[in-house]
């Protein structure tokens, strides 16, 4: 009995450490890890070398619908869904692996890391709370994050059909014309 409890506690500590290393805010830890707040705060300080930032989490669904965040979020969520639903991984396992694969892409492509871990976690929670759905783009056929219960038979994603003022100037290329953000 005691061995089981000890092992479980160790697993939770390990989970907390992984999440902290990936940038999780305290609220994420409190939600997902079964250690008390005091221990989580201490762990946070030890692992990250600083005190956990205070303040509420940004809880808006709107952010995920803006152009670049939508593409990055959709990319992350596709990976998460594949691992969770396709490969039947346990929830936090799938989440952490998916986030690491997202980070890998950022590193390989040199794109900006738009989706922080806490944001990714919020995204998953929004899907679980039925506030988001996936809509299929009529051009590329890929699934994108969208408000739940939105009619989407004509849906076009932000890459196949960018909003008229999308597109930041690329750092590598010389600017041919001024693009408004």
């Amino acid at each position: 009995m005691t061995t089981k409890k000890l092992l479980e506690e160790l697993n939770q500590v390990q989970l907390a450490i992984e999440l902290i290393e990936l940038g999780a805010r305290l609220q994420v830890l409190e939600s997902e890890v079964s250690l008390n707040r005091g221990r989580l705060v201490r762990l946070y300080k030890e692992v990250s070398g600083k005190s956990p930032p205070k303040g509420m989490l940004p809880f808006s669904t709107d952010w995920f619908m803006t152009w670049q965040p939508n593409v990055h979020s959709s990319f992350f969520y596709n990976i998460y869904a594949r691992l969770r639903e396709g490969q039947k991984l346990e929830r936090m396992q799938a989440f952490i692996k998916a986030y690491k694969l997202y980070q890998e892409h950022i590193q390989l492509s040199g794109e900006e890391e738009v989706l922080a871990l806490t944001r990714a976690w919020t995204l998953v929670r929004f899907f679980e709370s039925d506030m988001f759905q996936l809509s299929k783009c009529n051009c590329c056929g890929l699934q994108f994050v969208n408000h739940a219960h939105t009619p989407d038979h004509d849906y076009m994603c932000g890459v196949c059909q960018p909003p008229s003022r999308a597109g930041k100037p690329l750092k590598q290329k010389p600017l041919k014309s001024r693009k408004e953000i």
Partner: protein
Amino acid sequence: MSHSKTISELQELNLSYLMLVQKLIVEDRDTAIFRLKIDDDLADLIADMSAKELTMLARQPQSLLQPNLGPVSQLKAILTNKRDTGMQATHLAMHMASA
């Protein structure tokens, strides 16, 4: 039938692939399955193969690999998107993740 150079290259590719699969599975099974798009049964089978079995399979003058590029029309749409918004790499990565 004489062995053409191309068949040898195919056989080498087969063997390299199987060995890489074994390595990936040992390193991180779930991520390997995600990257390779194979199922659990095949992953287990390849992971447990002996050198003899690997070689026997690899020597078949058939490709052990099938392209994993998803629907052609979708891939084409992504690659030929004329709107340069800096999102192409992520778009492609998304396509590959869902393939």
